[in-house]
């Protein structure tokens, strides 16, 4: 058991170190949601009226509405970034070191995903701190109750990324795949506007958004930030995490990129 904990700690520690060394990654992870929060939201505020809806008890500003969605956006980009680093590690060879550790491969991959989720948590903490400095705050206990929600959502998005990375043979192909995942996932969710608002425009887009796991990740974070557990969203996110994890474990081929051709054995 100690060996597992030590390996988990080592993997998280390395991911944090790598993240701290990549200052540009940290800055861009923060700039993206801050631009949405302070520039786009200022324009959208006039166009979108938000009615009173749970978990909010009163009318809220548009900035307050998008805050959880942008926190989820940080996790979404971080999840894809983590999977990009898995493709990079695989191409550069450092994945071999991980996979020749005497621990089960599934545990090592899960540890890698957890490490990515912890890095995502650190990014969201920095984002929420800056938002708080600008006067956009949630109830104080919400900053604690949101942590498990952020970790679970981070794990789900990381496992989606790992599943994607398992289908990609080369690093260069990754950017295209990200565009086909990140933008549809983000815009087809409740991150920027409530789903009822989307329904006014298009019933089928609304139905699609309802089935989007990212929508439920946003809602899980939104409610958790206000100290509440949204069971439907939690079940969706937990279920999607499990499915994506199992699929990525099944699909992950450590040999890809190491061998001249696709191997038949796993």
């Amino acid at each position: 058991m100690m060996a597992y904990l030590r390996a988990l700690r080592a993997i998280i520690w390395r991911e944090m170190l790598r993240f701290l060394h990549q200052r540009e990654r940290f800055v861009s992870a923060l700039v993206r949601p801050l631009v949405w929060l302070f520039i786009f939201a200022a324009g959208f505020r006039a166009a979108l009226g938000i009615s009173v809806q749970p978990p909010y008890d009163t009318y809220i500003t548009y900035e307050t509405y998008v805050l959880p969605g942008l926190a989820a956006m940080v996790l979404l980009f971080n999840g894809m970034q983590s999977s990009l680093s898995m493709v990079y590690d695989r191409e550069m060879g450092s994945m071999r070191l991980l996979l020749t550790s005497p621990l089960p491969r599934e545990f090592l991959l899960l540890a890698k995903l957890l490490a990515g989720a912890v890095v995502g948590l650190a990014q969201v903490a920095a984002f929420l701190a800056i938002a708080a400095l600008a006067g956009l705050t949630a109830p104080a206990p919400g900053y604690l109750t949101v942590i498990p929600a952020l970790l679970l959502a981070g794990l789900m998005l990381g496992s989606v990324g790992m599943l994607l990375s398992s289908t990609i043979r080369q690093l260069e192909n990754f950017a295209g795949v990200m565009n086909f995942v990140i933008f549809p996932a983000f815009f087809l969710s409740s991150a920027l506007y409530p789903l009822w608002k989307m329904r006014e425009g298009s019933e089928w887009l609304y139905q699609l958004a309802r089935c989007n796991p990212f929508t439920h990740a946003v809602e899980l974070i939104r409610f958790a930030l206000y100290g509440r557990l949204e069971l439907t969203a939690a079940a969706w996110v937990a279920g999607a995490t499990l499915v994506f994890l199992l699929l990525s474990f099944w699909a992950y081929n450590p040999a890809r990129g190491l061998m001249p051709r696709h191997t038949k054995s796993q």
Partner: protein
Amino acid sequence: MTAALSVTGLRFAYGKGGFALRDVDFTVAPGRFTALLGANGAGKSTLMGLLTRLFTPDQGDIQICGHDLRRNPRAGLGAMGVVFQQPTLDLDLTVRQNLTYAAGLRGLGGRETASRIAVLLERFALSARAGDKVRLLNGGHRRRVELARALLHRPPLLILDEPTVGLDAPSRRDLVAHVHRLCVEEGVSVLWATHLFDEVAPGDDVVLLHRGAVQARGPAADLLAASGTDNLAGAFQVLTAEGATA
């Protein structure tokens, strides 16, 4: 005495292509330096991938210090240290951080990690570079760090896949000498894959791999005698000629 590494009837094919490895049999005796000698494309890296469980053989068994790699991978992988052909250090981390990470993956505790790192840095004359990012080290030093990393958990078996690729001649000699000393002084068993004949000492064991099959194996001196030559390059020519076996 149990062999450090025992490979029996190993077969592996890529997809539906022909076999990359065919009925490979050999052993690495405890405390011996065994050179896996073969030209490019002979199947050395494929064999290394199977030994380190990056791939699974289609057929055959791999025993590491008596542990079946398929049935008990944890014990098998735990008994080996690996230096890969491709550098696998994190360039943006320091030497010490790279070693600490690897120690964690092997389940070493904090105190043991610190003491092992200190011993190995000293042994490989890297103490002064412990706080340097790996990016700042030359190729020879990087290889030494990888060797130190492979030895962190005191493995009885060390597997190195063409570890001198890209090194200049002095660094190459230095690394070969280091690893030979490990066998003599610490009883570590070594499997060293190479295509360079001058990395094999007269007292070493040799497994000669050619087109995915073991063409000859035994002490280097025996192969020389069997081939009727006085150098390994000549022996290689003779023993890999069509139809030759030893």
